[in-house]
């Protein structure tokens, strides 16, 4: 009996080794999981930024079917890279609302003129306050919102061309 106990340290060590090896060979998942997933959007109301385009509030994002909420800025280079993908998503019939971070009216107008305008509404978030309450740490980021105003998914960084079809399918699945 006592002899068997002497093998316990080795067994413990092998268990430890298994845990560590598991950690080493598990593929690294770089996805940042938002704590907001499955939750309603926090309450916010943002004024319009561009003439002729309404501002954005959390109340108006409910009951209008699934949509994307894109967080962008005219001063952000990856947002320029992302613009064509957003145009394709819009062309696929997916409504996109936006929050512009720390931006000005002329800069955004010029940005939309050059790169196209996929947005239904643009809220003006001068102080990043709403961005922070959404748990977004940078631009661009995109949230997939369901018909009840709940966050389904968060895409950190620019949407790449190969993601467009996936996102279209995800939105269709929510309808």
């Amino acid at each position, binding site marked *: 009996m006592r002899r068997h106990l*002497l093998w316990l*340290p*080795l067994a413990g*060590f092998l268990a430890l*080794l298994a*845990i*560590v*090896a598991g*950690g*080493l060979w598990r593929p690294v998942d770089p996805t940042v999981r938002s704590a907001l997933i499955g939750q309603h959007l926090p309450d916010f109301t943002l004024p319009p930024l561009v003439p002729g385009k309404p501002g954005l509030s959390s109340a108006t994002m409910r009951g209008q079917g699934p949509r994307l909420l894109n967080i962008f800025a005219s001063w952000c280079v990856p947002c320029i890279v992302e613009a064509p993908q957003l145009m394709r998503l819009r062309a696929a019939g997916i409504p996109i609302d936006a929050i512009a971070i720390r931006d000005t009216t002329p800069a955004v107008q010029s940005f939309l003129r050059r790169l196209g305008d996929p947005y239904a509404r643009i809220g003006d978030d001068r102080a990043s306050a709403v961005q922070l309450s959404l748990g977004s740490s940078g631009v661009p980021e995109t949230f997939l919102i369901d018909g009840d105003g709940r966050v389904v998914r968060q895409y950190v960084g620019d949407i790449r061309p190969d993601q467009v079809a996936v996102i279209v399918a995800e939105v269709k699945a929510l309808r």
Partner: protein
Amino acid sequence: MLAEAGLAALWLAAALAVLQLLLAALALRRSEEALAAVRPVAIVQGALVIAAMAMLVAVFWRSDMSVALVAANSHSAKPWLYKVAGAWGNHEGSMLLWVMILGLAGGAVAWLERRLDERTLVATLGAQALIALGFYAFLLFASNPFARLDPAPPDGAGLNPLLQDPGLAFHPPTLYAGYVGLSVAFSFAVGALVTRDVGRDFARAMRPWVLGAWIFLTLGITAGSYWAYYELGWGGWWFWDPVENASLMPWLAATALLHSVTVLATRDGLRAWTVMLAVVAFSMSMLGTFLVRSGILTSVHAFAVDPRRGAFILVLLALYIGGALALFAARVGTVRQGTMFDPVSREGGLVANNLLLSVILGIVLIGTLYPLVAAGFGVQLSVGPPFFNKAAGPVALALVVVMAAGPLLRWRRDAVQAVVVRATWPIAIAAFAFAGLVVFAMPIGVLPLLGLTLAAGLAMASVAPLWGRNLRRTPLFIWGMVVAHLGIAVSLAGMACDAAFTTERLIALRPGEATRVGPFRVTLDGLSPRVADNWSAVQARLTVERDGTKRVLFPQSRTFTDPPTTTSESAIATLADGQLYTVLGAADGQGRWQLRLWWKPFVTLIWLGGMLVALGGALSLIGRLRPRRRTAEAWA
């Protein structure tokens, strides 16, 4: 040429390690020639790997950009200290440093160790060769520090600016000396298991190595803690970061080993346990190396990470530690039982110390690895101070009580009543401190209150072994124990004061405005730009005033250009009764600047205590290495 010479030295050293291993195996089969050859081979192997490290330092010194490692990590215009330190400020170089210390230690054992039975020593050197061989393979096949670059670039990429701190020159060698020193204890344990010769000679031969490694670990942890405190600008001194834990775990195991080896050397007890701890202590340093080098845990220490290298170290870990534990299980049952002792005795106190240290080690290990386990089940989480402080804090306080009582106990057998009588003064001092704190300092938290109370009692109990002794004739290792235990009391007092009495202020000020923090009045006099070679900064001038005495502090917010990073250079006023810690934040766009101010009474005691602990270890080591006197014999 130098790089090729270094590589050749490394290959030769590896070949000698193979020879050393074979000779040791032959010697254990009773070949007299082989027995005589093991020691010289180990010494030459050590000399060769030191030569390889010297070659690497030389190519860094000469800024030989045709060596890939130099080109990637150095720059010809760097100050000489960072050129030299750059040799180990990267993955390959630091692994070579690791192996160099291993070779140095093996050579030193071969050269100096005369007390141990020759066959056990040879088995020890064989184990040391086996460890070295794995790391030579790692260097030569997966991390060659001497690889050439063709064509050579005109100049190097430079060293990460955050690492351009004198601390870098000393921090890794200190910690590595501690990590690798424990490999010697491991090899002694394996050697003793092979020859079934676990006894007092084994413990006496191993003790200076454990003590030496432990001193280096203590210094490395103390210095690392202070470095994080002043450099990161967060005002904390310990963050339970995985890499910090990676250095704490070997220290905990080494501390336990240090005490159990004393029981073995003095009373010939705790044989199996001491062997086990020697294996565990080195396992923890290898696990630490693995965690740091594989990057499987998220940490503030951003190392270049390569899973292939992580896998290599993991295989070495599995072979060495798994092998040692299998040997332990198969052999330790045949080791004769050591001497038994009464539960209330010095030995009993040391067993309690070992158990509590092991519990803390377990808590830290579980907390550090738990995120990995959780990730296996698809849950992402991190384990931080709320867990570690709550789980390890009470155990650590219990350990302090044992620590205070231990030196007051007699070897072999003691009476509880007699111990209580001997502990009258420490208990009285602790009670006095407790009453004083409750009356004058409340409300402070429970842990800080207990911490300060116990620190007072421990400080008194630590010096108790000196009572009634002729101080000039007291053996050095007793002084070592006294100073080290006192150091823990001092450090504990610093931690408790920091937790209990720190006042913090986060405020935005316009130039000319003032605020108060603790007993200080802090005025923001103004801001000015500062420029250096590779950074620019905004520097605030703060006037700090207490009781009419003024001081001026200059905290900076620094922006490095390549790679672009912003760092806070805190400015700290060190006073006799604590530190005022100031950090400059961002401007708010309306002419105000954020300032973060902490008044931390007696926080410096934390590191002062750490240095005392290391000093105690050094005294003890000197005392053990010096020829014994009769008084020493009576106490050993």
